[in-house]
């Protein structure tokens, strides 16, 4: 997620507002270019306090926060919303994903036709059947057919019988195959139901992914405790004019609710110390409040049975209260449960994709499982196989997945076989041989591996002599 950049709203007199020094400090540094992190560095304030100031300034109408890249505003970073409904988002109006030079190819197609073909072709991997046909998820048979006919008339090779279509020919054939697959699936009641289940699965996990992504953003914007401590010390150093102090206040002490203190200072150093402590206390109590807020949100999600949202909220809460071991335990517990759910869903999706021979999609889905559980043997092996099968699968990644699958469970011969196959496909004969030999240590009778070793030896001999 991209940081939004705070920008001053002109024609507003800052002096008419009641601002505390932190706010004042922050607003003085806002120049329309610095983001949250940069402002934290500039001011030496922890990011969360800058964040809080910015929230306040925004509420007061003094600043606005704009996304420097996207025109669409992403959801607020701190809200932990339940996953969005299963409806599928319309295709985003993005920049063309093809190289405009491709439009200049000389062939018998009108320019507009070329543009539509390229536009669809290069987005094929990202479009579900509804989006590809340009119909809504609840479209009836008739509108699906109408949409299909329109695209079929565009992409069927007979439309340009015996004409020169150049590199557009294979693209049109691929498009025609995909729109026909989409049509045939969506007009068949049973197949459509199965596909919709798959899409719901995807949408649900996508919602979960978004939840997790937001939780991760929060973790980025609130630095780990070590960093906070380092920052505090840096601030103290500056306030003390370079005098070093050991970080005496243990974290536990800092978290302890502050008791009102009489501001009587023996020296200026004491005064600074007290100021610093008060500031810290304020910050710490704010953090605790946040932690409580997120814990509550997590409990609510849990009550609704939304484990993923709960895990995310707990995750955020633990960052505000890093030393609450009970909270940490709850986080771990829900996270494990949420992961199980996510992984189950991903496996269902990947299996469906494999059944329909959509290897690129299957590879991506398996990789998502790996992201959650890096040593998931089946997902690593699945990702390796899918990348191996995909038309332009990344063989390097495929090999990495196969290696991970082997590292997690070296006793599974299939992982060795796929690794050897990947190396072979990539032309790395020596590596294929090593992989095959490693596999033979597990199952010395495996004929496939024996074959690879034998052939690798032959190739080595041939190139050597």
């Amino acid at each position: 997620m991209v940081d939004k950049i705070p920008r001053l709203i002109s024609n507003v007199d800052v002096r008419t507002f009641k601002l505390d020094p932190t706010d004042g400090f922050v607003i003085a540094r806002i120049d329309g270019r610095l983001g949250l992190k940069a402002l934290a560095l500039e001011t030496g304030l922890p990011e969360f306090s800058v964040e809080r100031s910015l929230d306040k300034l925004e509420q007061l109408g003094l600043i606005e926060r704009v996304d420097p890249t996207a025109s669409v505003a992403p959801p607020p970073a701190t809200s932990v919303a339940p996953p969005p409904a299963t409806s599928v988002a319309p295709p985003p109006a993005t920049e063309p994903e093809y190289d405009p030079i491709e439009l200049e190819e000389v062939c018998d197609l009108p320019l507009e036709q070329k543009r539509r073909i390229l536009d669809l072709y290069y987005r094929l991997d990202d479009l579900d059947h509804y989006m590809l046909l340009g119909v809504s998820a609840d479209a009836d048979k008739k509108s699906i057919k109408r949409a299909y006919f329109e695209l079929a008339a565009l992409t069927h090779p007979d439309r340009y019988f015996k004409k020169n279509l150049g590199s557009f020919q294979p693209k049109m054939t691929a498009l025609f195959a995909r729109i026909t697959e989409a049509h045939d699936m969506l007009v068949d009641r049973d197949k459509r139901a199965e596909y919709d289940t798959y899409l719901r699965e995807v949408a649900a996990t996508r919602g979960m992914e978004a939840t997790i992504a937001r939780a991760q953003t929060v973790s980025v914007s609130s630095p780990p405790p070590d960093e906070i401590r380092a920052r505090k010390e840096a601030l103290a150093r500056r306030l003390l004019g370079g005098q070093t102090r050991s970080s005496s206040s243990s974290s536990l002490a800092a978290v302890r609710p502050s008791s009102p203190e009489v501001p009587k200072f023996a020296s200026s150093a004491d005064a600074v110390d007290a100021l610093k402590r008060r500031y810290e206390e304020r910050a710490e109590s704010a953090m605790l409040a946040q932690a409580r807020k997120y814990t509550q949100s997590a409990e609510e999600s849990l009550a609704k049975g939304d484990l993923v949202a709960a895990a995310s909220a707990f995750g955020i809460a633990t960052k505000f209260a890093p030393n609450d071991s009970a909270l940490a335990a709850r986080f771990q517990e829900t996270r494990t449960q949420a992961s199980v759910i996510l992984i189950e869903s991903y496996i269902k999706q990947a299996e469906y994709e494999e059944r329909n021979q959509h290897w690129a999609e299957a590879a991506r889905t398996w990789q998502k499982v790996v992201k959650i559980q890096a040593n998931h043997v089946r997902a690593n092996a699945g990702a390796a196989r899918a990348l191996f099968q995909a038309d332009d699968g990344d063989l390097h990644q495929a090999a990495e997945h196969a290696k991970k699958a082997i590292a997690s469970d070296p006793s599974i011969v299939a992982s060795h076989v796929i690794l050897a196959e990947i190396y072979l496909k990539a032309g790395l004969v020596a590596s294929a041989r090593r992989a095959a030999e490693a596999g033979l240590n597990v199952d010395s009778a495996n004929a496939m591996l024996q074959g690879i070793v034998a052939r690798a030896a032959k190739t080595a001999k041939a190139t050597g002599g």
Partner: protein
Amino acid sequence: MEKVIGIDLGTTNSCVAIVENGAPVVIPNRGGYKTTPSMVAVTEAGKRLVGHIAKRQAITNAENTVYAAKRLIGRKWTSPQVKNSIAMSSYRIVEGPHRDVRIVLREKEFGVPEISAMVLQEMKVIAEDYLGEAVHKAVVTVPAYFNDNQRQATKDAGEIAGLDVIRIINEPTAAALSYGFGRNVEKTVAVYDFGGGTFDISVLEIGAHGVFKVIATAGDTFLGGEDIDARVIDWLVEGFKEEHGIDLRQDRMALQRLKDAAEKAKCELSSVRETEVNLPFIISNGRNEALHLQRTLTRQELEELSSDLIERTIDICKQTLEDAKLEKDEIEEVVLVGGMTRMPKIQASVEQFFEKEPNKGVHPDEVVALGASIQGAALTDDRHQMVLLDVTPHALGIMTFGSYFEELIPQNTTVPTHRTKIFTTSRDHQTAVKILVMQGESERAEDNELLGEFILTGLRRAPKGTVEIEVTFEINADGIVSVRAKDFETGLEQSIQVTATSGLTRDEIKTMMDDAKGDLVDRRTSEEFEAKKQEADKLIAEIEKLFPQVEQIVASSDFGREAIEKAKAIVGKARTAIERRDVAAIKEQIEGLTRTHRMFKGVVAKT
């Protein structure tokens, strides 16, 4: 732009059409008929006859007259359908060198595509005469349920006839194109096509943007009007046998006369309630007495004779709707195609099944050729924005261990398409696999049609089940099937394009094409002969009719007697020329005949 004709190459009749000024029209033959019998004959003198001429002499030359060759095209000698045809046909069918079927006419063997080529050539000539220019390109229709071998054989026939068959399309699809042409409709249409030799049912969607999408297609390539004729023949033969104890089947000429009479009776019963079959002197008995066949056939009797055949077509319709997952009420229009749909009982059965009155707005004999010409124009002429999305009528796959058929492309898959499946070795240390490409619906490989085969060698010696072989089927828009097998490990690849499986080798097709070239000239001169012969025959007949009168008038004078002798000589010469089939001589004699005729008429008129 080069003109593309559309040809409906039918079992009993063929028809040719072209799109002219944006509208498809049927081209009539020289006799003014819009359809031409798909009949080919070789006369005693070795001349080839096609169409009406062939049909007219069929009774007297039954053994050398081929009809319904379409039922044999692309079929293997061993197929039950061929066995069936052998029993039913008056011409001789023998086995060819590639387990294919050959037809013997006057001691010469012809491939079935060669016979069909003669019909296609006739259609080509009809179009050329009409257009006044040479035609090289054609769209030819075949029954939807034809398999790849039959389609390929039909294409071969086109090639032999000197036609570039730019596309083979299905008859019911062509009918739907014709039905939907120029109408801005979005409809789901069922085409019920009951022709002379085949039955087809197709369900199509006619949609916006000029798109015609076939949803499902099915049929029976050995169920047609001919089978109903056969029932009538059986009925006549059995009746005759009961009465006289003689089996008329033993006599080829009698059989041909029966065939004609049965077809005629069947057609008549579409408009009348009963008809008489009258075949005098059909055969003679042991005592050399001539026997006559005379029976009355009622419409009801005909319906009883053919009821199970009609039932079969309805069963196929039912199955097709089930396959397409369509309810009867989703069919918005039923289009009737093929001569048999004139039969009231068939119309009623279709109406009863689909629960709606069938559309009779299209001409059942012409609609297919019109559709073919429309497809020809759509492919080659940018002004006709029409796209036909056709399907595979049969499943495609390969034979696997244990003689099983493993399907790769299911029936009713929209083309172009491609599918991949991974297979493995079935024996230990197997170093080669044979890929048998098959087409059909049966799980047992032997029940399906073999389209071609190839061998992938160089596999690693390994226990069975360990070597992976990837098999890919691809069908392009032309319906051409290519199959590729790839050894995953070695990357070795083998592929074939499924062609030239019509039982003829490429060389044979080439030879036949060369033969056909000679034949084209041959055919044109023989047409001229027919024309001149007719002219001469007519003059001779008229002269001979006047002879007694003229003889009476001029017999008194020497001049008159001389004139009579001269006239007799001219007629005699003309007869000889006709017998010798000498066109130049006939032309010469026609002049004399015309003079004599004029003179004779003058003599008669003066008195």
